[in-house]
């Protein structure tokens, strides 16, 4: 069952919904790759789509751009149904799906020129502009087959930008990039969003998503298990770290409080599942019960720990 985000900030609620999937489902034989996916993506936001390999991310974006036909459900982009308005939508949508793929016997420039001819109405100046933007202009005349994986990734982003899209879908755009290239793409994403474009970033790199995304959906085995603003998602994993003389007594007491979700013990500290706003309240109530706190700090969480908690998976900064 999909989880739909109803708790976003009021500012987001005001924004126009640019993409909506309703009950989007894809079955390959008996296997359900995507199950009843309900998503709303708003204008101007950078939306992270996170999940392990094979979780259904690429299938979902492929359904959004019409490469895969849904078994059930619908995709609505820019207020139009995809199945009836493919080209009016695609004219304003740029996407890189899975690994980059271009004609190896053509140069980077020629590949973009070919796509420009197919799309129509794109001037050579635009090709130059997008190549410059992804820092590939000086290698534009080299054959695609001579490009490194990082250069191929950047060419794919350039191709997605050709039609000046309002909505950009980037599926694993930093795969194969060196640290400098990784940073370039990471910096490029917010700059694109600042131009009033909407970006969907599919990634298994948790740090990448955490740095650039406003909202995140986490997908596992075809089901969305969380869809929140980054702020709210990270708040979910926030803990208070407390040191007391008698941790056993303190733990028993804190567990008896209904408003505290969970208490665990690690390395001599109590880890209390509560937001940092509750720190003063907890300190006070413990003191009133003759349990004196010697240390109290808020332990901020990262996306990795939240992801781990939500999915029960193991990560290494990557979701595999």
């Amino acid at each position: 069952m999909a989880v739909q985000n109803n708790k976003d900030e009021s500012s987001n609620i005001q924004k126009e919904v640019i993409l909506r999937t309703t009950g989007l489902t894809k079955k390959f034989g008996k296997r359900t790759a995507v199950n009843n996916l309900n998503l709303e993506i708003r204008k101007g936001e950078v939306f992270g789509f996170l999940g392990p390999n094979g979780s259904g991310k690429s299938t979902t974006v492929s359904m959004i751009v019409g490469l895969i036909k849904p078994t059930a459900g619908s995709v609505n982009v820019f207020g139009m149904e995809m199945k009836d308005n493919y080209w009016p939508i695609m004219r304003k949508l740029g996407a890189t799906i899975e690994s980059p793929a271009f004609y190896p016997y053509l140069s980077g420039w020629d590949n973009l020129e070919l796509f420009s001819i197919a799309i129509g109405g794109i001037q050579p100046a635009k090709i130059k502009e997008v190549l410059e933007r992804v820092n590939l202009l000086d290698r534009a005349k080299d054959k695609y087959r001579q490009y490194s994986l990082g250069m191929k990734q950047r060419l794919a982003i350039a191709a997605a930008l050709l039609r000046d899209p309002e909505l950009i879908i980037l599926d694993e755009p930093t795969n194969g990039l060196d640290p400098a290239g990784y940073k370039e793409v990471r910096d490029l994403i917010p700059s694109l969003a600042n131009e009033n474009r909407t970006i969907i970033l599919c990634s298994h790199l948790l740090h990448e998503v955490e740095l650039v995304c406003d909202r995140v959906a986490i997908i596992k085995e075809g089901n969305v298990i969380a869809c929140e603003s980054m702020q709210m998602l990270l708040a979910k994993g926030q803990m208070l770290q407390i040191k007391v003389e008698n941790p056993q007594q303190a733990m028993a007491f804190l567990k008896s409080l209904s408003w505290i979700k969970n208490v665990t013990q690690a390395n001599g500290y109590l880890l209390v599942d509560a937001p940092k706003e509750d720190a003063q309240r907890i300190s006070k109530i413990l003191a009133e019960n003759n349990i004196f706190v010697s240390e109290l700090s808020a332990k901020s969480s990262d996306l990795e720990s939240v992801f781990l908690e939500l999915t029960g998976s193991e990560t290494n900064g990557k979701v595999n």
Partner: protein
Amino acid sequence: MARLIRAEIYKLRKRSMTYILLLILIGLFALIMSITQAIALGSTTTTTVINGIPTTQSVPILAANVQFLQGAITSSIAMLGGIIGVVLAVVLVANGMGSEYGWNTIRPYLLCSESRSKMFTSKLVADVIFVVAGMIIGVITVILLGVLFTTIRGFSWSLGAGTLSFTGNQLLDFVRAFYVILPYALLAFLFTVLGKSTAAGIGFGIGASVLESIITGLLSIAHGWLAKIPDYLLSPNISKITSLSGASGGVTVRAGTNTPGPSSLHAFIVVAVYCVVFIAISYTIFRRRDVTG
């Protein structure tokens, strides 16, 4: 649609394989013509009946009587509609579509295409344009070589009964040659789409003609309804159309028998039906199938 056809032409124009296939065609024609002009001056055979017994004699010929250019044009068009034309067209068509799957460019290219139907049609139109262009270049090569050899070797400049009627006949043969290439090229296209691979397209495109010849040969010795099956296969009907050209005597019989083959109209209809069926199946698959990595 025009945009997508332009894009397809751009792809084929920039691809070295297109020029390699063209060079093979030109090279083969040049080789065949060189051999032909070398033996044309040697001798010719005449058959005379003496006392009711046919006797073949070798008679030396005069260069001034050899209508080399006429024969070269006629036979080159016949060769285009034969194995040379079929193989080259099959390789071109299968490569054009198969590479899209092999390089995974089908994915980004579809995102730039107005619709799957238009992309599909544009591919076929571009293939037709390149096949016809290749055939024209082949014929021009033959004409140029024919003029060269005629000048050098002192062959006759005569083009037969009349230039206008000769040109008309050659144009008709050219159209027939294209028509007989078409079903094999479309079969290659179908299997390329079905197997998502160039090899599948080339294999089935060329293999079908070989397989059909074997089946036709086997069924020709059968009786009853089995003997009728070859009339509905490609190769006997294509043989019929080919036999209408100036390079052939205009007579076709079933292999191994003296039974006349299908009529011309029957042959044209059967080939057309095959073409439509091949296009319809490949279109349905292409339009419906998910594009996955």
